[in-house]
């Protein structure tokens, strides 16, 4: 499928310029960020845990092949069937094949960003299978025929009044109802029926444990447990980066995950699955690569594989909070999404590494210490190297570099620029062609630069003879070292 090229500023505009919605979204996510801060500060060894988690992930990713094979051996020994999928198509085909083998017509699926990434829902629906997302937020966006706008809070962009409208249309709730208690009850009853009629349960995986061949799914609604308890077939879809070596390692991550994600001390349900639940049941684990091995091969971006999908980087990102998750046009939005998306398709997602003020908050909030903002900066270098920076920006930077290497020219250009800003009428300098002035005034340009002031008040600046590196007194008359 040929993806359209995402232009983040354009995609973000409707959301961010709707000030009420943008502020409401920003406040909702900041509330989560503050809850996270409170929880993180309650753990004295928080920074140590981050360091430990990062080290475990670095080790696991370095030895990923061995751990995956160990996981497969142990999972198989427990009676699970392990499948390997190189890409999204293969993943979807494997799932469909299992469903066909059981004559399945409807499935219940707990939240899984991997199945979103692979486009499993539309694929299965195209093949005549009814898919019910059982996570409340995911069910809401599914009913609205949208995609999740956040990896942990899929419907964070939707107000409760809008949920009421959606439920009124699809579930027959009272028109105009917006009471969360009432709406949640309605969703619970609706989903309860779906759980009872689901023939196969599909879940994602938060952590695969090589040592035991088991895996862990974390939910707050218990929907993963409900979804796989009744059907006799459970399919778990797992990205290969979800691997950790041992149960002892798991404790490091479960302490970090919920605190970072939602500011809870722990998720309500941390469910362990070790093999099929009984002799009449089947457990299928689909291990999915879909570009992960390629990411693993890249020295700069490899740490992005540490990601445990907590969403903390989104909650803290000032751009995400104001522009909304859909502005990224990607399964995973926000800072980590802006690192991962271009690694799949640099051309389509070339604007995402620039949808960032490089504030660095994401790197410091990340529980597994992915240097996110440094990776976004590195991506910019990659994009320029691949000729994907628009020509206008390329020329602007070339010109700036040229000027900054030539102090005399730089001074002349600066002087002309300041004079122009001073003498030209306001409407000439502040118009729609000047992006700066859409919402801001330009600085009032002074008559003299600092250098001019310095010469008038302190004499000539000090010159250096760069050939021998010695500082020289300023009272000489040689050329002042300009390259211009």
């Amino acid at each position, binding site marked *: 499928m040929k993806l359209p090229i995402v232009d983040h500023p354009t995609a973000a505009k409707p959301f961010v310029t709707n000030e009420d919605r943008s502020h409401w979204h920003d406040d909702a996510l900041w509330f989560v960020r503050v809850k996270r801060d409170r929880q993180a500060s309650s753990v004295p060894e928080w920074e140590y845990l981050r360091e430990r988690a990062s080290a475990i992930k670095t080790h696991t990713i370095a030895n990923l092949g061995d751990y995956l094979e160990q996981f497969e051996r142990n999972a198989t020994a427990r009676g699970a069937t392990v499948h390997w999928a190189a890409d999204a198509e293969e993943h979807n085909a494997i799932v469909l094949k299992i469903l066909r083998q059981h004559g399945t017509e409807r499935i219940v699926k707990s939240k899984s960003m991997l199945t979103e990434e692979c486009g499993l829902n539309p694929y299965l629906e195209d093949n005549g299978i009814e898919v019910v997302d059982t996570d409340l937020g995911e069910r809401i966006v599914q009913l609205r025929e949208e995609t999740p706008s956040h990896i942990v809070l899929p419907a964070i962009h939707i107000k409760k009044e809008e949920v009421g409208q959606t439920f009124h249309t699809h579930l027959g709730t009272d028109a105009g109802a917006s009471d969360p208690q009432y709406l949640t009850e309605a969703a619970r009853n609706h989903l309860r029926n779906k759980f009872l009629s689901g023939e196969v349960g599909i879940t994602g995986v938060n952590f695969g444990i090589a040592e035991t061949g088991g895996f862990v799914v974390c939910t707050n609604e218990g929907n993963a447990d409900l979804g796989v308890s009744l059907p006799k077939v459970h399919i778990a879809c797992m990205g290969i980066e979800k691997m950790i070596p041992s149960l002892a390692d798991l404790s490091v991550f479960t302490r970090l995950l919920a605190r970072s994600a939602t500011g809870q001390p722990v998720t309500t349900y941390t469910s362990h699955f070790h093999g099929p639940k009984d002799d009449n049941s089947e457990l299928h684990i689909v291990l999915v690569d879909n570009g992960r091995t390629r990411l693993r091969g890249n020295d700069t971006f490899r740490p992005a594989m540490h990601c445990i999908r907590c969403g903390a980087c989104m909650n803290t990102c000032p751009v995400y909070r104001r522009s909304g998750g859909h502005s990224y046009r990607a399964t995973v939005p926000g800072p980590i999404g802006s690192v991962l998306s271009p690694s799949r398709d640099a051309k389509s997602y070339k604007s995402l590494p620039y949808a960032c003020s490089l504030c660095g*908050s994401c790197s410091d909030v990340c529980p597994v210490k992915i240097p996110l903002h440094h990776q976004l*900066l590195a991506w910019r270098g990659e994009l320029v190297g691949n000729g994907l920076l628009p020509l206008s920006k390329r020329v602007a930077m070339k010109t700036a570099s040229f000027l900054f290497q030539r102090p005399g020219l730089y001074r002349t250009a600066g002087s002309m620029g300041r004079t122009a800003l001073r003498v030209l009428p306001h409407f000439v300098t502040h118009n729609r062609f000047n992006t700066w002035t859409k919402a801001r005034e330009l600085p009032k340009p002074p008559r003299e630069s600092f250098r001019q*002031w310095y010469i008038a008040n302190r004499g000539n600046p000090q010159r250096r003879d760069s050939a021998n590196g010695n500082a020289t007194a300023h009272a000489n008359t040689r050329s002042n070292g300009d390259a211009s």
Partner: protein
Amino acid sequence: MTVALFVPCYIDQFFPQVAVATLELLESLGLDVVFPDGQTCCGQPMANTGCNSDTAPVAQRFVDLFAGYDAVICPSGSCTAMVRHHYAEYFADDDPAFTSVRDRTFELCEYIHDMHGGRIPDVCFPHRVSVHQSCHGLRELGLGSQSERMTQRPDKVAAVLKQVQGIELMPLTRVDECCGFGGTFAVNEADVSAAMGRDRIADHSGSGSEVIVSADMSCLMHLQGILRRQQNRLQVMHVSEVLVGRELETTPLAAAQRS
């Protein structure tokens, strides 16, 4: 002690009063300050755009110009962070000129706090002030504690400001939220950038502050642009201006001229 003053390009061209205040402050600390000629820019605009080949010669020039001084002092956390943390890409690890410049380039408040005993001249600034911590100063240079990290660090900007007589530091709701400047981000993502700036201003206004003070004039340039568009009376000042005892303009006309 001979220190070199590095004046970032936008301060040289648009905010010379900040460089003057920085120079006067350093001189009042008894330092022998020189202003090396031929300086332009640290290269950050190109580096942040990803144009590394355009950055390299500018970085090389900077290092050639500033190598050999006891210290290079810069009234900008962002430009200092560029030299200290992002120049490595353009030099050999053991290039003595590079390592010397990298290790001896300081942000102004950082220099006063770490290298000069934290003392400032006696000045008075009897106003309510809210401090805007720049992201690069905070997270790359560690000028203060970050709300994300569970480790405490001394707040170097506040520490020097607190010595000013009569000053009252006002608390913010989001202590270290980004203002939305971000260099070319302010132009690339104008809508998001401006929204961030307006929110930042609302927090500062809500604190009862009369003036936003920051160690980074770039953040203040962006915020000032929005304040003026809003015809908001809140003012901005660089920390150096407060530390040399510049007065806050109190008449509306004067305030309008300043901001």
